[in-house]
Structures are given as C-alpha cells and as structure tokens.
C-alpha cells in the first residue's frame, strides 16, 4: 500500500491524516511549522493545557494532534518546506527542504491542506515597524507567549478580529480600538445559516465576553487608513476614519498606539497547488483558490485539496473537508472505504456558513482612495503607487502582469504573496477596467514556491 502524503497540519490536514489512517492507509504528514496545529491551533512549547486561554476550542485541536501523534500509521515531518513541486504522468514530485538538506518525495497521491494567511491592503505607513497582521500578533502570543505591544489597535474586517482582540486582552495587553470596516447588521442577512451553526455563535459570544472585560467596544464602519511613526521610527499613532459603505472616508481622527493589527480576511496559499498544475479559480471574495469536486479532488486525479485552500471558510469547514479528502485519498490508494452522506451533509452546512461570512465582510474598492502616490505597495522591492502609475501612464502597461514586470512590484522575496492581490485591483482601477480571472490567477504563479540556497539546489540530484 502506498503512502497518503498530506501537506499541512492544521485543522484540514490533521483531519485528513486521521481519516486516511483510520481507513488503513499509511500517512506521511508534512508541515513547515515545528509543531502540529497550523495557524488555528498554533501552540508553544509550554504545556499545552496551560494555553487554553488563547483558544476557543483547543480541546478539539488537542484531540486531533494527540491522535495523529499516537497513530503509528502516521509519520510526521515537521519543519518541512517544499521549494518546488511538479506533476508528470500521474506522479507528483515534491522537493522538500528538511533538516538542513533536500529530500525528494514521489507519490501518486497527495492531499493539499496548505491553509491561508492574512489578507492585507496597502495604506500610507503600513510598512512602519509596529503595523502587523492580526495573524502575526496572534501567532506571537500563541506560539511564543509574546505580546507585540502594549496599546494595540485591532482593525480591518472579518470575524477573525474578535479572537485576536480577545487574545491580546487574555495575554494582558490593552486593545485601544477594535474596528470593523463593515456594518454590524450585515449579519442579519442570513439568520437561518446562523441558527444552524449555533457553535459559531457561541464562539463569537465567547470572544465578545472577553473583549468587553477588556473595556473595549467594537466600532463598525470604521477603518485605519494611515499609520505614523514617531521620532524613534516606530509606530506612534494611526488615522482612524469613519467610512462609507464603499470604504470612502467620511472623517478621521488620530489614535495613539504602539501596535496596529490590521487584516482583511484571508488569502489562500495556492502556491503548491499552482506549481503542481491544479486548476485554480477566483472565489466570491476575488481571492484565488483551488478547484475541488465533491470528493475534494482537484482537477488532477490523485491530488486532493481541503481547507482554506479551496475557499476561506474557517476551521470547522476545513475539518469537514479534510475528513472527506482523507477518505478520498485512502480510497485512491486502494483502501475499502466510502464517504458517507453525513460527511457531505456536515460539509454543506459549514459551507453555507462560510458563504454567509464572505457576504458579510466584503472589501470595497474605496480603500484605493486611502493611497497616496508615495505609498509603498510592494514591501519587498519598495515599489510605490507612483511607480505603478508611471508603468501604466508612461510605459504603457495595460495589465497587472506587465506593470509588475516594469516595476518589480511583487517580484521580491515574498513573490507577491503580500501585495499581489492588491496590485491586480490597483492596476485595474488605474486603467478603469475590471481585472480578469486570468489576471488574478497569474498573480499567484510561483514556480519556485520558496527560496532555496543555490548551494542546496546544486547539491541535489
């Protein structure tokens, strides 16, 4: 029996690993982190029971992580970074940096659970030390027991802002403002979905309770539109604006803080799926995701995809998809196992909730009006809005790919993971056109998934 190879050990990957192992398949689970859990159940080297404060539901996570460690059919490679991957004639080749060297995995089947990372929008001052993503602030607390600062503004859009604010308060920090750019009543658009996902409501109330203990009240229709540094070069304050439904500014005030955690939902990490040649598509939130059929199979037979990679939907949907992907992969390698209707029903319920969520937290194009000519867009290559305008107006770029090649915008070390999505919108707005799906999908094309030292590359076969 061949191994089921799973990439990513968050909620989807852990679920897939257990489902495949339960069906009798040997499993190899790879993750770039040093510990299991992904971003959602990120944990530190402290005794895990002591970290429950920072999680709404660490019990489920501990259950999955402990089960994965206990099952002898599952081998785990932590700290494994895939730098390149390809698919040819039914065989997937993963080239992995692990324990200081390169290892090659050839497998007919794969389960990709590569997750997502914070979506950010450029704005004046977003490159000042102290401006961070909410996920970054949370990972420091969960993974390292460190508070990024003492006076924190949490802003942007989406339900993720709640656990981040709650986590800061639990860790002893002060949340000076909690700002949601969208209006609160958007949620009422889908009351039935809310009711059938009652655990999600419980989760929200859990965070709101913590946040109110921290004497913070969430404000809606408000956003951070600029950040300022003090004489020491560090973040000193942010401009907080009341915004219209289209995100255009009504009025602003200045708020002192030493950290601003600003995020706009999530972007799926499609680099590996894309390198393998899995078909990608543009989701409702205009993010690029991997296509999946009802068995979580990608466009390539034998490659299964689950979790945030297939569309942003949270940990519960990820688990539901992970189980189905794990069973599908086990079946693919010859195990006698079937996906039950209950599995698919659970997934459908979580999917309805995820859809409602995406509808409730849109990012409207008015954010483009917050930018100035000198605002940095590409943090790696220090490309400004003005540089992009020059590429369009003077050099005649008529699409985001050409604008990128003229300016190196999105061509630095992060390979456009941070700015790529925004650049597509910015260039299209500048040209007064709508971005095509091809524009969006070509912005996530990264044949080299992560940088590899030339010496390591040279030593490989």
């Amino acid at each position: 029996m061949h191994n089921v190879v799973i990439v990513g050990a968050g909620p989807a990957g852990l679920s897939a690993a257990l489902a495949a192992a339960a069906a009798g398949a040997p499993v190899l689970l790879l993750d770039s982190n040093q510990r299991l859990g992904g971003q959602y159940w990120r944990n530190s080297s402290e005794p895990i029971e002591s970290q429950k404060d920072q999680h709404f539901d660490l019990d489920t996570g501990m259950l999955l992580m402990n089960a994965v460690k206990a099952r002898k059919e599952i081998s785990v490679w932590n700290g494994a970074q895939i730098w390149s991957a390809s698919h040819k004639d039914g065989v997937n080749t993963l080239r992995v940096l692990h324990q200081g060297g390169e290892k090659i995995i050839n497998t007919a089947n794969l389960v990709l659970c590569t997750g997502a990372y914070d979506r950010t929008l450029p704005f004046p001052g977003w490159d000042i030390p102290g401006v961070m993503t909410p996920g970054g602030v949370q990972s420091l607390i969960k993974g390292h027991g460190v508070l990024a600062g003492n006076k924190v503004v949490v802003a942007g859009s989406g339900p993720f802002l709640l656990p981040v604010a709650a986590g800061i308060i639990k860790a002893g920090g002060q949340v000076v403002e909690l700002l949601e750019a969208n209006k609160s009543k958007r949620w009422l658009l889908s009351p039935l979905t809310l009711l059938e996902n009652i655990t999600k409501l419980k989760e929200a109330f859990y965070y709101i309770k913590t946040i109110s203990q921290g004497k913070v009240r969430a404000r809606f229709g408000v956003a951070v539109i600029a950040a300022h540094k003090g004489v020491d070069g560090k973040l000193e304050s942010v401009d907080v604006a009341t915004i219209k439904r289209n995100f255009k500014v009504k009025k602003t005030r200045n708020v002192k803080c030493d950290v601003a955690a600003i995020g706009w939902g999530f972007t799926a990490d499609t680099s590996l799926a894309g390198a393998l040649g899995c078909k990608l598509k543009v989701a409702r939130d205009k993010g690029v995701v991997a296509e999946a059929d009802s068995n979580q199979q990608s466009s390539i037979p034998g490659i299964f995809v689950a979790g945030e990679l297939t569309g942003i939907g949270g940990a519960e949907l990820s688990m539901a998809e992970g189980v189905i992907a794990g069973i599908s992969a086990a079946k693919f390698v010859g195990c006698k196992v079937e996906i039950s209707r209950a599995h698919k029903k659970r997934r459908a319920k979580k999917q309805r909730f995820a859809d409602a969520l995406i509808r409730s937290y849109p990012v409207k194009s008015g954010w483009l009006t917050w930018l100035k000519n000198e605002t940095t867009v590409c943090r790696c290559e220090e490309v400004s809005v003005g540089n992009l305008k020059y590429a369009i107006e003077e050099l005649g770029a008529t699409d985001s790919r050409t604008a990128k090649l003229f300016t190196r915008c999105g061509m630095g070390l992060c390979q456009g993971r941070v700015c790529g999505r925004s650049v597509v919108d910015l260039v299209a707005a500048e040209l007064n056109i709508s971005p095509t799906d091809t524009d969006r999908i070509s912005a996530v094309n990264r044949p080299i998934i992560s940088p590899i030292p030339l010496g390591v590359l040279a030593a490989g076969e």
Partner: protein
Amino acid sequence: MKNPDAIVIGAGLVGACAALALTNAGLKVLVIDRGPVASGTTGAGEGNILVSDKEPSAELTLALRSRDAWFELNTDVGGGFELEDKGGVVISRSSQGIDNLKKLSKLQAQNGIEVVQLDAAGIRQIEPHISKDVEYAVLYPQDAQCQPMLAAACIMRAVRKRGGVFMQGENVKSITVESGKVVGLVTEKNRYSSPIIINATGTWAGEVAKMAGSYLPIMPRRGFILVTAPAPKIVHHKVYDADYVANVASSDADLQSSAVVEGTESGTILIGASRERVGFKSDLDVAVLRQLARQAISLFPILSNIALLRAYRGFRPYAPDHLPVIGEDANVSGLWHAAGHEGAGIGLAPATGELLVSQITGTKAFMDPTPFSPKRFKEGEALAI
C-alpha cells in the same frame, strides 16, 4: 491608423527598434502585437549587449555598431532602462581553453574589439569573489547590459510620441499578397493596408512568413535563467566561461549550459545560460536549474549561500546557420524580416533596425546586409529540432 507607411508585427526589442528607426526616417508606423510589449523572448532575456562572444564575422560588425547604437538610442529616447556599460569577463580554466581564449581575443582585438588580458591578480582586482582556480581571464569593456522589457517599453513610448501607433492584443490572422507584393494584413479585430510589413516576431517568424505564402526556417532554442534574492554587489561584470561561446555556436540538440553570472541594478543576480532544442516545452526543468547553480557556484563559491528566488525560461529564435535574418523576403516583395537573432537579439536590435531601414529606404548602410539575407535559405531547408 488604417493605412500606415509600414506595419511592424511584434513589439519585442527587434520590433521596437525597427519601428523607431522607421519613425525616425519619417515613416508613419503601426506596430501590432498579439500581447503586450515585450511579452515574448524579449521579456525572458537577460539584456545582453555583447561583443565578447563574437568571432570576427558579419555578426561582429553588426554587434559593434549595435553596441554604440544602444548608447545613442539611450540618449534619443531619454533613458529609463538601466543601460550599463559594465563590461564582460570571460574566463577559462583548462590549458586548451586558455589557449583558445588567447587566440580568440587576439583575433577580436585585431577586429575592433577592446580586449584586456588579465592574470590571476588582475582578475581578483575587478572580481574579488571569483573562484580560486581562475587564473586567466579577458576583460571586454564594451560589453553592456540593459533591462530589456523596460528598454522595449521606453522605445515604444518614443515611437508613440513621434506619431506611431501601437495596437496590442491583436493577433495577425493573415497577410494579403497581390501579384507577389504585400498590400496589408488582417487581424482578429481589424484590417490594415500597407505596402511594407516587417516581420519581427522572433521565434514565431516562420509562422508569419507562412501567412504571406513564403517561408523562413526559424526554430526555438529553450533557455532558463535563474534569479537570486537581492544581494550586495558581489558580481561586478558579466562573467562567463569561454565554453559559452562554443555552446552558442553548437548545433547539438541536447542540453548545453555554461555559467553566465551577472549582477543587476536591482540587486538580483542573474544566472544563465542553458540551451536546448525541445520545441516550445515550457515546464520548469529542475535538472537544468541544478546544473546552472553548480556552474555558477564553481565561478563564484560565495553564491552558495544566496537563495534562488525565481527561474524563467524563454525561447531563442535561431536559424540553421545561427545568423540573424535581416532583409526582404525571398518570394514576397514588401515583406521584410528582422528575426532569428537567437540569444543576441537584445544586443543586435538597434543595428538591426538601422540595417533594415537603410535597405527599405535605399540609403547607404553601415555594412553589407547580404550575409543576413532571407534569400540564403533554400525552400524546405531541413532543421534539426
């Protein structure tokens, strides 16, 4: 512009330079490309402007003129494309190779190329990080580099500002020929009339020739370039192994590669240059990346710690005799070719434009264009794939 004096098909560097030369000669020019500017081989190039890799030949005469033309053009269009006369350094490590390089450079010096012989100490003075086993090299101060995409864009901007028109995203469907003469062409969207059509479609030039009922033997030769993470200035020239010259001239279909290493203004280091004849196969070939990395490290051991960030591939357009094609079609009058420059298209583009225009307008050229004539091929001439 429905009735231009001339239509250039292809907005790569050769097309852009042809369009600029025609515009500067007073013609109303329309440029058509199926994609954006520099979206073919130009966008996949390193930006080489080399004289060092040429043996005394017609191509060297073209290269020497083109090198100077680049700097004139830089002034003409107002710069903006990172043109840098950084100089090339060619090394060799075998006694046979050193002998050959000495002979070649002596011959080059007699034919107008500036050549500086370097001993072990001399090399280290200009390239401190070069591998310890390099004891002989030749410096070619005339070798230069530009950012080819920006160059094409800046040249096209000048063409537009001087009255030319650029239609991008238009695929040419057919070329209309009446009694052996070009009269116009049809794209997916429009129909244009013109007595002059320039085929500057590089690797795809054979297809365009076919549209006019003629033929041109141009084939793709794939190459990969590695791009590193930004690094401090550790490679100061374009540095390459003399084997490169042998590979350029080789007719072998298999993979050949020899390290060509250079720093760029943006801080990344570019590593070339592989050559294989595999048609338009575009997948990333890790074996080629590894070989290029090994060869680059053997030149500059310090590169070992520097990370590979991107790799891209392009398809060099080559003719059976490895010479560019610059001149009027063998069968159709009014159809002019400027293609097949293989890996030297960036460097040779400005002089190609000049040579083309002097033939079209009947003015005196800086050299005899006969060696580059399309008439040198026999119909049906076989190409090794």
